[in-house]
């Protein structure tokens, strides 16, 4: 199966569980299982070529100019991890089906799980480091959702937030590191980077890049000092802990270290940082794990410890270390996932995870006992189980590693890490399963159904099989190791076997196990000692750090961003003017090249009206109705200005938009106060006037200067004028630009317009659904209502005029290509015609006669425009290429048919839909506020405050 499918399947599959939610829990889990299984089988189909040593690639150029390509690669290492992710994923899905209770939303859970799975597979199959980063961040996000899945638990939310903060920060550091690496290597493709070891390691940017990338790896893989988030993430449901925090996500950092091993390892920096971090994490994690009472916390710290072990092995920089690391990843994934699932079973059956409340479960839960004990013994490093093999390889490697010039340091730490590791494993087994059967379990424990114990037992079978017959795993691990090493080192000759003879590693292993048993003997005094020793609490430190960051951010932001809109506006205006002034002072201004044209009396009169209206608006804006009249005058003058300066299309648009805007504002003003009270102090008004004057002066100067100068370059309009008729088939250049030359822009704009209208609709719905509704229903109109709700003159006039206006709209639409007009203007004209019906005959009457909802009209418009664009693909042309031809059908004159007209039809529909949906939404608010409307237009309102004194009563003749 193509690599693209393997990555894409979980992502597309993530849509399904939510849909299957209603079909029941089994269907939901089943569909998730099927999706994962399909991806898993797809992966397996590639096994033969991976075994043959081939590297499979799949490539789509995404943004080649940025070096960002959708490139996937499958080699031994990628296969290994993808196998773990998808294989263990299958077991987890089966387990989770039985683990989650009826109250949990299973569709949501599996959606997150599949998203996570896809992101993980994406990481391990990426051949482009930028793409890898995208998937990397996706795992952080999806694991956030999974950890916080139980939203009602505060620990869950906090743990999720902490995990996201830590891994997210690490991810940011890694982005920087990866960008540096890409700069050094000259490519963001892994296959290229991996070939340039010498180039990268000699570059001065190597150390910063290394540190930043390692930050990402260490945070993800919970290495000291970033280990603290992992135990807190244990608030997640156990399937999540077993999947993310033992087998997959925490291995992502290790995967990346392994992937980058050929180019980054082998330097002193790498060795010191990675080995030290790994060693410290290994020992620290093991010590803390010993004293944890929560089963999952114990396992979490043991995971931290084992991740440290693997990191340490990668840090040594030897081929043998890398091989041991790969082997231990495999072994750890099997026994740790099994242990987590066992812990989940115990939690599920006894309703507690506290070791102190458990014990004696051996007799009550024999199946779980066998599974957990085998897995734990493997973790402790007992022979004939797989953990023993890789742990011994680790000890062997440790004896050859010299850190800080002290040959005994690494072996000593490795032994103590193994010792504590053995100790907590013994404690886990002893304190949970052995001892007397108690009578105070929170619930009555017994073995669960096979749905819960089958998945971990499959893993434990692997633990035993690999432990007994290590030669079975050897070729596969060597294959993986070979792809880790790349060309950087030779594959080690060592064989996997249980008995290596009396080598130092064996003695160390024995020492660790015996030591572990001894620790168990003196566990009670040790625990007392541990509890009395003061230790730094990572969560408190983290919280303090976050609190400090929040305080700093508030100190910085609040003075600037305090919720006062006027302040932002003032700061914004002054900043823009200041920046412009700076540009003005530092730039050069050429002398004027154009003559000042004389202004006729018409222009002066128009200007005077515009200035008077603007001034009036500023001085009299407190009277809101009056200010609407004034702004109407301004708009009218601007329209006339457009006509005067040879822009008929603009004038028509401005004029029609003016009409709908005023209607809109009137509808809004219906609810708003009719006057603006005097609030601001004189000082404030003077300040605002100052800002306004400066802004006005700046725009005036800028406009005046460029009006007197020609453009510096040749305007591209020359091209438009020359090609409008030849290429676009229309003589109205403005319209041809809109529907042809820059059709894609227009397409975007009608979509924006549609979104704006839908937003208004959504806001109206929200308002009408909330508490505003009650307020609207109780609202008393503050203006005297008209006696005639639907004046007869107006009703008659608008209905008579409707076909006329529609015809004008149609005419304007058709002539648009060659004369001023087009879809935008026609759309506005038709909208006005429809709005007039609403105004005259009432909302109910007009709505009842509405055949198509406006949403649909917007959608149809966008769709028609889009399909017109796509149509050009069928003739092998790019999106939105237009074509036209001239036809002649007697007895008509020859006329033109252009695809651009179809596009313009889309524009027309989108404009009509958007304008009408906006206005309709506003009037829906009004409708809630008033009396129920009559079905009949031309009513006399009987509920009016001052009923007429005539005897005739309400008339109803108009129906």
């Amino acid at each position: 199966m193509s690599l693209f499918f393997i990555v894409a399947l979980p992502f597309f599959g993530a849509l399904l569980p939510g849909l299957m939610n209603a079909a029941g829990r089994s269907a939901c889990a089943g569909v998730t299982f099927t999706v994962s299984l399909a991806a898993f089988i797809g992966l397996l189909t590639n096994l033969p070529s991976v075994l043959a040593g081939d590297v499979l690639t799949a490539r789509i150029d995404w943004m080649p100019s940025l070096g960002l390509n959708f490139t996937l690669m499958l080699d031994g290492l990628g296969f290994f991890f993808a196998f773990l992710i998808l294989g263990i994923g299958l077991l987890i899905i089966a387990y989770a089906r039985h683990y989650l209770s009826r109250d949990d939303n299973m569709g949501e859970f599996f959606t997150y799980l599949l998203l996570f799975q896809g992101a993980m597979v994406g990481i391990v199959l990426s051949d482009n480091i930028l793409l890898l980063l995208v998937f990397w961040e996706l795992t952080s996000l999806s694991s956030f959702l999974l950890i916080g899945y139980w939203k009602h638990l505060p620990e869950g939310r906090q743990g999720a937030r902490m995990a996201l903060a830590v891994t997210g920060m690490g991810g940011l550091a890694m982005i920087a590191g990866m960008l540096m690496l890409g700069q050094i290597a000259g490519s963001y493709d892994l296959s290229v980077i991996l070939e340039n070891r010498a180039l990268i390691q000699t570059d001065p940017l190597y150390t910063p890049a290394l540190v930043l990338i390692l930050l990402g790896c260490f945070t993800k893989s919970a290495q000291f000092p970033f280990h603290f988030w992992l135990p807190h993430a244990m608030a997640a449901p156990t399937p999540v802990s077993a999947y993310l925090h033992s087998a997959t996500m925490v291995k992502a950092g290790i995967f990346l270290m392994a992937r980058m091993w050929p180019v980054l390892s082998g330097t002193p920096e790498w060795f010191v940082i990675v080995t030290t971090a790994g060693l410290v994490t290994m020992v620290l994690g093991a010590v803390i794990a010993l004293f944890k009472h929560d089963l999952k916390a114990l396992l979490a710290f043991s995971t931290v410890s084992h991740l440290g072990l693997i990191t340490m092995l990668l840090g040594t920089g030897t081929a043998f270390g890398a091989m041991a690391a790969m082997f231990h990843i495999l072994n750890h994934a099997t026994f740790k996932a099994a242990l987590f699932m066992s812990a989940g079973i115990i939690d599920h059956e006894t309703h507690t995870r506290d070791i102190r409340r458990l014990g004696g479960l051996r007799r009550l839960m024999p199946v779980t006992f066998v599974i957990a004990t085998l897995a734990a013994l493997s973790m402790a490093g007992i022979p004939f189980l797989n953990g023993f093999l890789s742990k011994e390889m680790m000890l062997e490697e440790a004896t050859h590693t010299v850190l800080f010039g002290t040959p005994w340091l690494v072996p000593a730490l490795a032994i103590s890490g193994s010792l504590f590791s053995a100790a907590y494993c013994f404690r886990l087994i002893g304190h949970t399963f052995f001892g007397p059967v108690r009578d105070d379990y929170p619930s009555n424990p017994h073995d669960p159904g096979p749905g819960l114990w089958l998945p971990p037992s499959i893993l434990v079978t692997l633990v035993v099989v690999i432990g007994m017959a290590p030669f079975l795993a050897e070729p596969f691990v060597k294959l993986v190791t070979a792809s880790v090493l790349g060309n950087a080192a030779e594959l080690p000759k060592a064989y996997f076997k249980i008995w290596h003879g009396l080598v130092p590693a064996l003695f160390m292993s024995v020492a660790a196990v015996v030591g572990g048993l001894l620790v168990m003997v003196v566990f009670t005094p040790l625990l007392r000692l541990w509890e009395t020793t003061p230790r730094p609490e990572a969560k408190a430190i983290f919280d303090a750090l976050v609190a400090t960051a929040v305080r700093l951010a508030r100190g910085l932001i609040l003075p600037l961003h305090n919720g006062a809109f006027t302040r932002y506006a003032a700061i914004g205006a002054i900043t823009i003017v200041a920046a412009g002034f700076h540009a003005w002072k530092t730039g050069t201004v050429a002398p004027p090249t154009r003559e000042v044209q004389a202004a006729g009396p018409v222009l002066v009169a128009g200007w005077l009206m515009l200035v008077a209206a603007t001034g009036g608006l500023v001085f009299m804006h407190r009277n809101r109705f009056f200010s609407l009249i004034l702004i109407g005058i301004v708009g009218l003058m601007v329209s006339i200005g457009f006509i005067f300066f040879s822009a008929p299309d603009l004038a028509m648009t401005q004029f029609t938009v003016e009409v709908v805007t005023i209607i809109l504002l009137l509808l809004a003003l219906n609810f708003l106060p009719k006057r603006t009270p005097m609030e601001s102090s004189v000082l404030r008004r003077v300040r605002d006037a100052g800002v306004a004057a400066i802004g006005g002066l700046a725009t005036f100067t800028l406009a005046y200067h460029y009006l007197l100068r020609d453009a510096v370059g040749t305007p591209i309009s020359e091209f438009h004028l020359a090609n409008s008729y030849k290429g676009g088939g229309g003589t109205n250049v403005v319209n041809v630009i809109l529907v042809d030359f820059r059709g894609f822009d227009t397409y975007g704009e009608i979509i924006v317009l549609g979104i704006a209208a839908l937003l208004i609709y959504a806001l109206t719905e929200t308002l009408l659904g909330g508490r505003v509704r009650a307020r609207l229903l109780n609202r008393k109109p503050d203006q005297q209502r008209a006696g005639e709700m639907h004046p007869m003159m107006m009703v008659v006039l608008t209905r008579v005029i409707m076909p006329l206006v529609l015809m004008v709209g149609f005419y304007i639409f058709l002539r648009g290509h060659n004369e001023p007009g087009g879809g935008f203007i026609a759309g506005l004209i038709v909208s006005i015609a429809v709005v007039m019906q609403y105004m005259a005959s009432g909302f109910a009457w007009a709505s009842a006669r509405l055949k198509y909802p406006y949403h649909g009209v917007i959608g149809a418009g966008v769709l028609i425009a889009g399909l017109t664009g796509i149509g050009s693909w069928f003739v092998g042309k790019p999106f939105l290429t237009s074509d036209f031809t001239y036809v002649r059908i007697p007895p008509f004159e020859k006329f033109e048919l252009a695809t651009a007209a179809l596009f313009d039809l889309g524009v027309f529909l989108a404009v009509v839909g958007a304008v009408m949906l906006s206005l309709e939404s506003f009037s829906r608010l009004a409708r809630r506020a008033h009396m129920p409307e009559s079905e009949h237009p031309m009513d006399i309102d009987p509920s009016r405050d001052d009923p007429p004194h005539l005897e005739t009563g309400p008339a109803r003749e108009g129906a």
Partner: protein
Amino acid sequence: MELLVASAIGILTAGGLYLVLRLRTFPVILGMSLLTYAVNVFLFASGRLTTGAPPVLREGMTTYSDPLPQALVLTAIVISFGMTAVVVMIGLGAFLGSNDDHVDDRPEGEDDVTEGTA
């Protein structure tokens, strides 16, 4: 002519800015409308001022006004209607929800600090 257009742009900007700096939603919306006019005319004027030469191709005509700014401003006018409508709706919703049409949101106390850190 240039002086008149440039000064009209300046006056519209100044009036718009002054109204945008008011404290209630309605004058702010009016101010934004004035600013929209100013910006649209400004953009339109970047094609320089030409009279009597609309960009509709005719036999024998050689000079036309610049069509590109016109096309851009045309869509800007329509989009600005959408923007105004959204802003009006938000303002209206805020007023109906709180019976207050101030644009300035007074920052609340420090009482919600703890939630962000927990």
